[in-house]
């Protein structure tokens, strides 16, 4: 376990989400009862099959959706008591997002895409530039800043998206299948970036079904049928070893086996 001395950053308690279909007919249980917490400085991966409720969980934490019942606390503060405009500025200031399909605006250059959250928070232009350069260099996109999203590769787009997510110095970086649309080389580069960010203290919560992606995490949570089913700590394991451990767990999960650890 990386650190283990960190404060509790995010706490999820008895989280439940039921979707009602549009015409009020049938109900779908996306999350039945989820409990977990993340400490500062952790890199947590949430794994599960399609439809297991991973994205629902992430959307709830990202405050893009509201749970049916349960609680989400960031540093002990409930996210559910905020109204829409408070939530928007909360998202901007405390959370960073990386999405599978990048979600860059094609009307902005990479630079403007990265600066977007700062502009929304009324930061002075000088301050923006001061923050931009080190991050761009760290992510290797300082030469691409004036290009537009359609002019760069998927990996470069995703790095720009990461830059956008961390330029506000968020307490928690949320990533939804960040490698999903990337080739294996770009995926590895991105995961290395995530590991480095984590080494320098960035807390990350990543949803993925890629075992390779998950093997970069310090802890892996498995979600099945709307519940946290199992978790693995990295401990002193190498990426390779963690990879094998995750694979084994997934096989077990798929065959309906029980948790053994």
């Amino acid at each position, binding site marked *: 376990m990386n650190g283990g001395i960190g404060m509790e950053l995010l706490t999820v308690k008895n989280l439940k989400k039921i979707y009602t279909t549009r015409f009020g007919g049938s109900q779908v249980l996306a999350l039945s009862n989820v409990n977990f917490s993340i400490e500062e400085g952790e890199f947590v991966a949430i794994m599960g099959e399609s439809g297991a409720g991973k994205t629902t969980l992430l959307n709830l934490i990202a405050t*893009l959706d509201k749970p049916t019942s349960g609680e989400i606390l960031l540093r002990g503060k409930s996210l559910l008591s905020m109204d829409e405009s408070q939530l928007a500025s909360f998202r*901007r200031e405390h959370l960073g997002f990386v999405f599978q399909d990048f979600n860059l*605006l094609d009307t902005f250059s990479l630079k403007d895409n990265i600066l977007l959250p700062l502009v929304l928070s009324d930061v002075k232009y000088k301050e923006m530039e001061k923050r931009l350069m080190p991050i761009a260099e760290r992510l290797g996109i300082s030469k691409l800043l004036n290009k537009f999203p*359609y002019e760069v590769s998927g990996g470069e787009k995703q790095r720009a998206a990461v830059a956008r997510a961390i330029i506000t110095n968020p307490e928690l970086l949320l990533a939804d299948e960040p490698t999903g649309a990337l080739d294996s080389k770009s995926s590895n580069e991105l995961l290395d970036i995530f590991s480095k960010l984590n080494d320098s203290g960035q807390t990350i919560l990543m949803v993925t079904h890629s075992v390779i992606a998950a093997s970069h995490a310090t802890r892996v949570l498995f979600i099945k049928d709307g519940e946290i089913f199992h978790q693995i700590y990295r401990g002193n394991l190498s990426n390779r070893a963690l990879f094998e451990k995750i694979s084994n767990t997934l096989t077990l999960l798929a065959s309906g086996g029980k948790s053994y650890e």
Partner: protein
Amino acid sequence: MNRNLYSKLARSNIIRNRDTYFPYIFSSVVTVSMFYMLLTIANRTKEADFLGDKVMTDVLTFGVIVIGLFSFLFIFYTNSFLLKRRTKELGLYSVLGMEKRHISRVTAYEILYSSLFSIAIGIVVGIIFSKLMFAVLLNLLKLDTSISLNISLHSIIATIVLFILIFFTVIFFNAIRIHKLNPIDLITGAKKGEREPKSKWLIGILGIISLGSGYYLALTIENPVKAMLMFFIAVILVAIGTYFLFTSGSIIFLKILRRNKRFYYQKNHFISVSNMIYRMKQNAVGLANIAILSTAVLLILSTTVSLYVGLEDILATRYFRDVNATFAFNVDDEKEYEIEEIVFEKKMDNNIKIENIVSYYNLNIHGILVGHEIRMDYTGNVSDDNIYYLKLIPLEDFNRNQDTSFKLNEGQVLLYSNKNYNYNDIVVLGEKYDIKGKLESINFLPRSVFNQIVLIVPDMVEIEKIMTKANELKKMNYMYNINYDYGFDIKGDYEDKVNFVKDLKSQFKTSIEGFELIEDRYTTRQDFISIYGSLFFIGIFLGTLFVIVTVLIIYYKQITEGYDDRERFVILQKVGMSKMEVKKAIKSQILLVFFLPLITAIIHIMFAFPLVRKILALMSLTNTKLFLSTTAIVILVFAIGYGIVYKWTAKVYYKIVN
């Protein structure tokens, strides 16, 4: 079997794409019905026999041609929007294994169904409303509304033929366009992201020059005769300028804004400026079209309404008295007496009362004004601005008609001009006169739209002197004559007045030597009503057609934008913009985009105003206040209508975005 499949697919496509198809069908129905109505009415007036029917038939026939032409353009244009909206769907068909000719066939069926429907319903609507519109027309023309209008088989057939032709051309061009499409581009095209538009400085500068010179022309043309030609040049310049500035000027402007970092990196400007750059790229031509169509609607309606409403003013300008007769003879008491006799006799015959008699001798010549000198040698700088129409009237006649008692010595004159004349003397064909006084107005002369100088001279001797000089100097095979003008107002029944003028005319012709012409407001009024009433009528049709197309373009733009913006809306929210903020940002953008054309149109109209006023003056409408208020009302009504359309389409837009 196969055919059934195509037609079934086509029908379900129309229903499924009803958001785009129904407005298209609706506008087609309106176009068809308007064409049918106008054609039927034009044919009816051709057969009819009433005062002014000839002029009216001419104007209406012209209107039919114009409406037919625009129907073609508009259906074509809206169809291209329709096809563009659906490229993705068509791409999907092609991926699912349909060949291009199959896709063409499906869209052909779609056009076929929608056009057959439009033609049928359009004609029915036309038949229903043509009676109403005909009554409106007769009312405008102040004619007996009992003239009936029947269903015209000829018009129905002509309408069907025209629109089948139009729709077949549309089908043909759709097939070509589909053939050119690449299926992969169709599907991925939307996702690839649009290239950022380049700043085209040359086009931007040309746009400014073109628009600027158009405006300059409109503002500086003094001469109304020139105004007519210059108006068309100005219209073309302004149209080109509008297109250029919308397409490239807007992008240059926005990029300059973007370069200003302090300005650009602010919450309110950041998103709107960058989005506007793309919106302008996609919409510039459409918006320029809206701006120009709106300008056209405003111009057509404000002028035709003004002419129609200002009819009495026009008649008063053109004809100083109800009846005006002109004769060519020098002072001749016997003839004067004879004219009075004839008028007296005919007025008794026709039960007419006569008042406000005006009679005077005068000489009309024209020449160029150089400094204080009127010359007839057209050497040197001759332009419409220095050609002057000179009228000489003896003092005695002037005093009698004006009810004044001026006195003049030899070599003295009184001067009136509708332009500024700043000298104390005037030389007419070498004869020098001192100006004893300048007249503010002359009560018994109609206003002239040309450069005019009226000189009141001491006696007929002076006039004869000038006439002799003029006839020596003239280059044309034409003799200058002294005229005798005789005018008066009449009272009585309409029929009596018309008969009176007819009688008078034939009697003058036979018994007065030197009779030139007689004009009266009564027979000409009907001619004027026919012309301006029909023009107004066509103005309504054309205005409606333009408005519908404008609305349709706005509507399609809103839908397209809606689908484009939906994704941006979602991303912005994820990045930390609240729903309210996003809504505000998008609202200010569409407000700007959709009111830009309206504002442009209003600016165009404001610049066109002085020039159009002069053209109207050429048509004898000199009542500026009337034209100004009509224009203001037309703009107001149009702006309100535009606002309503915006509100309605914005609703559709928000429905898509949310």
